[in-house]
């Protein structure tokens, strides 16, 4: 006798209990603290903040811990939390020219005012597994020792107010001028996406877009799918103050400091019907230290500017804003992709019935054709 499957609720609870056990792993080992994640997995924290669109290291660390290191799951936790937060207002635009840089490089000039600052980069490391790290014991230090070791803070102080490289080109009129605007940009998280989208909206979508997806698109432009000849005019990573106007006070106050990565590309451009030959720009700005993402974003941004610069649409994916904007969000993508795990037996049943019916009719048709073939010629006439 068939009894309809019951007990979905108990099954879900049991699965969740199992999940929480697996998340913790072997309990003879100490649990990860949020501080450890923030300090030692800081680039992971940065990615979760960037694609989660929420700058909060502690929440990002919690999300990473809760998601067992599944970063898209962690980003999802951040996004879902973010939407429940009341919106008190908007900050003033940050001034990346006033950034305290920990890294600042230009590929277009050998040297420039402010200098090349390599900072904490993987560049030029030999990618050899460092087995010392595996064997390493606790290299913890005391608070006093920590206080004497505040070297990197001094570096901050030295590296403020570094001019943007592209401004030097701008003075000579060699690079396209970005028109300054005080218009409040649209907000992707408050208004449904409408096309064509403004550049501000495109950049919003890209900065919270999936790193892998944006990287892949940027790479495709380098390989010839709407190639835009990008040089890294400048890449800078550092800290910026966030200010907010308080109407009651009549002035703005500092509400905090965020780490960001900014990339400006300088792109070759031979000119078009609309624009004279000059360099053009792509722009990337991402929370935290995420230079792969910032550079990718700048390349894709530049590719999507074809219309404004009077270039041809060559049908490349990175030029196609509808394609890019509708598919770059990994939370939308993973949700829809994974939803095919949900039961679909009702639709499947209707497909089954349809296939059976079509097959039956097709087979009957074939049979009829066959018996017709077998008939003597006279009868057919």
């Amino acid at each position: 006798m068939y009894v309809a499957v019951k007990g979905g609720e108990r099954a879900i609870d049991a699965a969740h209990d199992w999940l929480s056990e697996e998340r913790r792993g072997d309990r003879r080992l100490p649990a990860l603290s949020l501080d450890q994640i923030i300090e030692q997995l800081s680039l992971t924290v940065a990615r979760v903040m960037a694609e989660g669109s929420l700058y909060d290291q502690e929440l990002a660390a919690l999300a990473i811990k809760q998601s067992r290191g599944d970063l898209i799951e962690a980003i999802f936790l951040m996004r879902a939390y973010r939407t429940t937060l009341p919106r008190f207002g908007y900050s003033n635009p940050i001034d990346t020219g006033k950034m305290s840089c920990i890294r600042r490089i230009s590929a277009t000039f050998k040297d420039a005012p402010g200098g090349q600052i390599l900072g904490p980069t993987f560049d030029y490391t030999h990618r050899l597994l460092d087995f010392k790290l595996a064997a390493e014991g606790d290299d913890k230090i005391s608070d006093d020792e920590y206080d004497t070791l505040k070297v990197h803070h001094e570096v901050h102080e030295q590296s403020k107010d570094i001019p943007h490289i592209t401004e030097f080109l701008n003075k000579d009129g060699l690079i396209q001028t970005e028109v300054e605007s005080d218009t409040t940009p649209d907000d992707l998280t408050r208004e449904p996406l409408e096309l064509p989208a403004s550049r501000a909206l495109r950049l919003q979508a890209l900065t919270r877009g999936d790193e892998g997806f944006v990287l892949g698109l940027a790479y495709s432009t380098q390989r010839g799918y709407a190639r835009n000849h990008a040089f890294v005019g400048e890449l800078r990573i550092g800290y910026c103050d966030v200010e907010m106007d308080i109407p009651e006070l009549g002035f703005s106050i500092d509400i905090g400091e965020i780490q960001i990565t900014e990339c400006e590309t300088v792109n070759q451009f031979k000119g078009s019907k609309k624009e004279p030959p000059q360099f053009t720009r792509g722009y990337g700005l991402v929370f935290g230290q995420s230079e792969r993402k910032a550079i990718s974003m700048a390349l894709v941004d530049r590719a999507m500017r074809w219309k404004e610069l009077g270039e041809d649409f060559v049908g490349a994916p990175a030029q196609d804003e509808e394609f890019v904007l509708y598919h770059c969000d990994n939370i939308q993508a993973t949700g829809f992709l994974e939803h095919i795990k949900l039961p679909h037996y009702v639709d499947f049943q209707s497909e089954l019935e349809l296939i059976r019916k079509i097959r039956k009719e097709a087979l009957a048709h074939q049979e009829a054709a066959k018996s017709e073939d077998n008939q003597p010629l006279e009868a057919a006439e």
Partner: protein
Amino acid sequence: MSEYNFAYLDEQTKRMIRRAILKGLAIPGYQVPFASREMPMPYGWGTGGVQVSAACLMPEDVLKVIDQGADDTTNAVSIRKFFEKTANVETTAATSEATLIQTRHRIPEEDLTEDQILVYQVPIPEPLRFLEPRETETRKMHALEEYGLMYVKLYEDISQHGQIATSYSYPLKIEGRYVMDPSPIPKFDNPKMEMSAIQLFGAGREQRIYAVPPYTKAVSLDFEDYPFEAMKAEGCCALCGADHTYLDEVIIDDDGGRMFVCSDTDYCESRRAAGHVGAQGTPQNQEAAAS
């Protein structure tokens, strides 16, 4: 429950959704863009339906959630629990007791009344999407009432298969104007869409809400010589004997043995409670005595 607002969403978000619902009702079948929020469940798992339900629910509501016609499927359980926790509403499996029903892929067998609201979870709200992937193009087609592409597709089906090869998400024309996707319900359910209850459709990821007011003309697309045909598996429910309901096929042994049962579990149970017994069912009082 004090951490979150009543029915989870903040009031500003609910107002935005409510305004979209009202415009949807004023323009039946037209997809109203709305600024869908990230919900604590994944896109594609009913976030649109959940947002519409959250904007509609009142504390005195009785909520029913079904997936594939069943109250006990895992995602239905999960969504029901979400509203039990965040809106503190009473829930039920009985269609007739519910004031608001959120559904995925089915319309209940029992006729709905004027006092009920049916909220559909919609994955792809655009009926033309698989014919034209660009939103900028499909929006123009709706504006111009240019549905030729859809008819061409249906006609090609007929010339190739002798019939229209769409068995679910079967498009309808609403009040003679907008072609609408009814969500992936089997086409068996299409004729029920002219009903007494308010029907609301929420697509979270795609940021669209649309609606069909009660007693609105909802005509499944077809051709004069190939009229629309609601389709279901041949046979009766093995448990309650119904021959007029949508049936699920269940594989019961390793040899591919199968039986058909009602997809609407509540409808099936209430029939059995009323004494209907199918070929492989047992009268309900006996089952109760046995357990």
